[in-house]
């Protein structure tokens, strides 16, 4: 079947600066902070003063697909504080003080995945609170407990945003563990076809060389074009499986998981440690050294940045973005004292030399419409949003926007199209719910 070609764009990667050195470790924070309100409101299971073990359930998310939140360290709950969350919002957080004993709960110890059934694997995934670490943070067990027939599991190693190299590092330094985890992800999906989707670019050659001899007979590597947004789930699924779908990839018989998710799953099965660590890229112009770090979830970013020599002296905060996430879709933060989460892949300290340049009027070049991977016309959406025409916005399919940022990226007049389309999408969704 011939597939439609989604509009994409090659974007300069800037990835070299963060992969020249081996990843550092930040596994012994004094305190960790676990948000109780974000990304969704949580039912807190522990009190201030309680002693918690590593992997103990401290919160449970509410909502349609509940998942537990585990303590990343062993220690004492010492209080409730307000801290910044990587979406540039403040949240109440539980502060846990480390006793550096790393006492772990028994739930995940001595697992024998070889003799576990599919259901048991999904069950342990659910207990571990594993969420998709690519960014969306969708609980992983929901995907794998499907009743549909799964044709293939795709591990997304595209990492299509510039600057970020956390998945690359994760796989490069843990290739065997990664494949081990992938083997049981395939088992958890009851599927016999595993695909690692990676971009076809020079710096990835090393990873491909490492992985190739380790692959099982039912796994293979598929190369994606070096374009943005190649890591978008729909792009990956459509280019690899040649099938389209409406809402979820499972409609095409595909499950997509991020490489870091796979790594966390593997660590849990092999070493008995639930998903409490995450590779993170620290890079940008305003930080002294760039690189990757394996950090405990809930660690304060400022302490991690100290590992890289801290921020450069003389950088001007008024000209510098702190981006939580990638430069295309991430959020810029007011203050650097926020914490890491399961879904945070990078923190970029990016100087913005053009912040005083004005937005011009729309020239009407139509480049935003040409480049939209969801086939929207951002410029028209912006116009309709300005007059608040909801009916027209619905007809323009704003809910299909994936906030990839390409429309703002290509706009020669620096118009904040992505933001406008995002607002329009929110507006339509909010009214739809009423």
């Amino acid at each position: 079947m011939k597939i439609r070609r989604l509009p994409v764009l090659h974007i300069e990667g800037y990835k070299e600066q963060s992969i020249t050195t081996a990843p550092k470790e930040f596994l012994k924070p004094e305190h960790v902070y676990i948000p109780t309100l974000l990304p969704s409101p949580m039912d807190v299971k522990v009190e201030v003063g309680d002693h918690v073990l590593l992997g103990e359930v401290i919160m449970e998310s509410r909502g349609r697909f509940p998942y537990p939140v585990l303590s990343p360290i062993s220690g004492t709950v010492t209080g409730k504080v307000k801290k910044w969350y990587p979406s540039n919002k403040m949240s109440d957080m539980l502060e846990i003080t480390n006793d550096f004993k790393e006492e772990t709960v028994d739930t995940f110890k001595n697992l024998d995945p070889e003799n576990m059934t599919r259901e048991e694997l999904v069950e342990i995934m659910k207990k571990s609170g594993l969420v998709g670490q690519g960014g969306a943070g969708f609980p992983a067990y929901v995907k794998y407990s499907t009743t549909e027939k799964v044709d293939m599991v795709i591990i997304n190693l595209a990492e299509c945003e510039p600057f970020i190299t956390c998945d690359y590092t994760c796989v490069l330094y843990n290739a065997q563990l990664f494949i081990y985890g992938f083997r049981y992800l395939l088992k958890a999906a009851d599927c016999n076809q595993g695909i690692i989707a990676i971009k076809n670019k020079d710096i990835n050659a090393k990873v491909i060389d490492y992985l190739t001899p380790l692959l099982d007979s039912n796994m293979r590597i598929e190369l994606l074009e070096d374009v943005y947004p190649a890591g978008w789930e729909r792009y990956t699924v459509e280019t690899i499986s040649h099938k389209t779908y409406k809402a979820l990839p499972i409609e095409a018989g595909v499950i997509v998981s991020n490489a870091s998710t796979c790594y966390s799953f593997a660590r849990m099965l092999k070493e008995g440690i639930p998903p409490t660590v995450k590779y993170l890229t620290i890079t940008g112009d305003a930080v002294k050294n760039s690189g990757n770090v394996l950090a405990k979830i809930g660690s304060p970013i400022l302490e991690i940045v100290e590992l890289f020599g801290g921020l450069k002296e003389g950088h001007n905060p008024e000209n510098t973005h702190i981006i939580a996430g990638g430069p295309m879709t991430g959020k810029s933060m007011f203050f650097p004292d926020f914490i890491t989460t399961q879904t945070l892949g990078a923190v970029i300290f990016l100087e913005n030399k053009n912040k005083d340049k004005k937005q011009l009027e729309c020239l009407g070049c139509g480049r935003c419409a040409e480049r939209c991977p969801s086939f929207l016309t951002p410029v028209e959406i912006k116009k309709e949003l300005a007059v608040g025409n909801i009916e027209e916005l619905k007809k323009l399919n704003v809910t299909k926007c994936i906030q990839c940022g390409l429309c703002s990226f290509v706009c020669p007049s620096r118009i904040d199209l992505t933001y406008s389309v995002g607002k329009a999408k929110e507006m339509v969704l909010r009214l739809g719910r009423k």
Partner: protein
Amino acid sequence: MATKYLVTNAPYLRSADHGRSTHTVMRDLLIGLSPVILFAIFKNVIMVFIKGTYVSVLQAIYPLITLIVGPLTSALIEMLCLFIMKRKEITKFSDLLEEVKNGFGFFPGLFIVLISPVYINMWVLIVSIAVGEVVGKMLFGGFGQNIFNPAIIGRAFMAFSFSNLIGVSCFDPSMNSYLNAYEASVVDAVAGATPLIRYSTLTDVSYVGAVEPFGNLLDFFLGTIPGCLGETSFLACLIGCIYLSVRKVIDYKVPLIYVSVVFLNTLVAGLFMGQGIWYPTFQILSGGLMFGAVYMATEPVTSPKTNLGRAMNAMMLGVLTVLFRLVGNNPEGVATAIVTMNIFGLVINRYVVRVRVDGKLDKNEIPGLVIFLSIFVLIFIYNIIMIV
């Protein structure tokens, strides 16, 4: 409290910071226009000096003067309008200059000069530029808001309001303004100064009657024929078109489709009339067709925003140009067609936007497409019948 870091909306990388801003687009447009401008200077100033047929030096360099005065006039008028419109926001003179810089005010004036006769009366030119700039651009709110191409509004105003002055040289009332000093001494025997004006007076279409008075078709291609200042050279427009397409300032498909449709339409009509291949070739090489197709039909502000929309627009422009030029017997067919499609382009834009949703045709859109195609085919056939 610590200083806040800079917070803006994602994405934090913009191609506008890496050599693709509106200013670079406009600079490219100017570079893309340069073959046309240079050829106009070559033909109307340098050649005149070489042949030495000028009456006064002022007459010889008059095209140069208009090329300077035109853009300046329109930039000044834009500055005045901006000052009136935004006087609450503008406190310093540098703010005003910044606004003018971001409004690209000199382009309408430059375009109007290029599509006006060589020896146009200076006051007619200035008034037309003022009208084009104010009515065509600033009344809509300035750069990016205009519905019509301001240059064509100004040119149309010139054609309607000064119809007795436009064809008369400002140096010698007995001379034709389309002919430069050198051409006037050579082709003065010809009835009708430009090929299209002559063509519109012909009762019997023939190669001898239409083309031969001005040389052969190669002259048409190179542009060594009488006509508006910047419009005569197909070659110069083609060079500009290639540059602009490579730099992705314009969509090459628009001129390609536009010119092809005119060619096809006149080819079929010509065949019915028993004319050879020269007839459609004459039609695409003469008048402002190539200039209009490359520099005006592609003007982004007034074109549809999607690929399909632009293609539909260009198809319609093709048949409308033939309709106005040959059936309506109006040498300004290109300008009229572009103004017309500026209006219907809005309709197409509105409607093609929805065609694009999901990247495929929506069932609801098929009636609209069918209507569009039937109008196109109807005009195409009507043109043929009327011309024959």
